[in-house]
């Protein structure tokens, strides 16, 4: 079913040509069941092949199609077009440098992501022959929600601290580190808490809660970050009581 036409005001930036980002307008016919991404694909296929952006799965799970839609970070393949008026602005994700058009630079995020040691740390590695470990459904529940992050980085675009403090680890990375800390199979909390208390410290978060408001996967990174603070304080306090080997 046709929804008539809508106007898209899209940010364009080509470092080879433009000194700074500019906008371009496209007026296109849209369908009632389209997501925002469908409209952008239509523009690329039919009107302007040079428009650059990332996308792949079109089912809200690969995390690559985040953009600012009318000033809010959105997963464009999940956001219904019908909930907007006749004109939409599409911009690259806020708080990230822009490489081209709607493509932002992920390097800083990937570094932070790796910094929190997002892998199982155990004093002694297990052999396959030992079989799968036991984990009660309850223990699984303790971290499950925080393992649902698709790394779409919408939360980074929404967080006021990320906007101003370039070192801040940021919601998704902290949620990921916390996910492993809360995993009953993991023994690496000390190491990660040291990271959490170091450069880019989790204590920079001012609990704006914007990250959780925009998260398309209900990861609740704000909850994770603030739980992580709680744990990091307990860990810090107990370090006065029990001497740590490494530091």
């Amino acid at each position, binding site marked *: 079913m046709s929804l008539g036409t809508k106007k898209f005001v899209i940010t364009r930036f080509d470092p080879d040509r433009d000194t700074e980002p500019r906008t371009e307008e496209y007026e296109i016919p849209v369908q009632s069941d389209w997501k925002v991404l469908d409209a952008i694909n239509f523009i690329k296929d039919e009107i302007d092949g040079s428009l650059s952006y990332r996308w792949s799965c079109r089912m809200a799970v690969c995390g690559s199609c985040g953009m600012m839609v009318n000033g809010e970070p959105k997963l464009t393949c999940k956001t219904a077009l019908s909930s907007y008026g006749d004109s939409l602005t599409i911009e690259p994700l806020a708080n990230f440098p822009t490489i081209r058009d709607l493509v932002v630079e992920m390097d800083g995020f990937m570094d932070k992501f790796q910094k929190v040691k997002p892998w199982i740390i155990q004093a002694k590695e297990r052999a396959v022959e030992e079989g799968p470990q036991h984990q009660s459904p309850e223990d699984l529940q303790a971290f499950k929600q925080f393992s649902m992050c698709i790394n779409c980085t919408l939360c980074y675009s929404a967080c006021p601290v990320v906007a101003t*403090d*370039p070192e801040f680890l940021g919601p998704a990375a902290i949620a990921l580190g916390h996910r492993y800390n809360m995993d009953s199979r993991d023994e690496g909390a000390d190491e990660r808490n040291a990271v959490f*208390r170091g450069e880019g410290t989790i*204590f920079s978060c*001012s609990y704006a809660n914007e990250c959780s408001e925009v998260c398309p996967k209900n990861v609740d990174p704000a909850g994770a970050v603030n739980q992580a603070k709680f744990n990091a304080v307990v860990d810090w306090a107990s370090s006065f009581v029990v001497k740590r080997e490494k530091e």
Partner: protein
Amino acid sequence: MKALLLRLEPLIWLLFGQGILIGTILLTGWLLVVGVLLPLGIVGTGADEALSYRRIYLLASTPVGRLVILALVALPLWKGAHHIRHLFIDHGGADHDAPIALSLYAIATAGSLAAIVAVIRL
């Protein structure tokens, strides 16, 4: 400066959090009394009345009284200092965070120490 700040961060956050939690819980009653009930004359300030020097002094100088006053004074200072620091950061002052933060925390520390003296002196 920054390294020092990083080391202090957990403690500051703890005090800040308690400033919000305990501070807010304690402040509400106090503010109701001095902001509403006292000006309306519902609680009296006269010699034998509720807020008289003698009665309040007796209440305040108990160990519990001293502790409550300490919490009531010091914790909001930390909440305030920390939030003001964040206001600076949010409004573009992240590059000067360390000196601003340390000054603010110095103020809160001074206030807290003074509060300790004040309750001991009672």
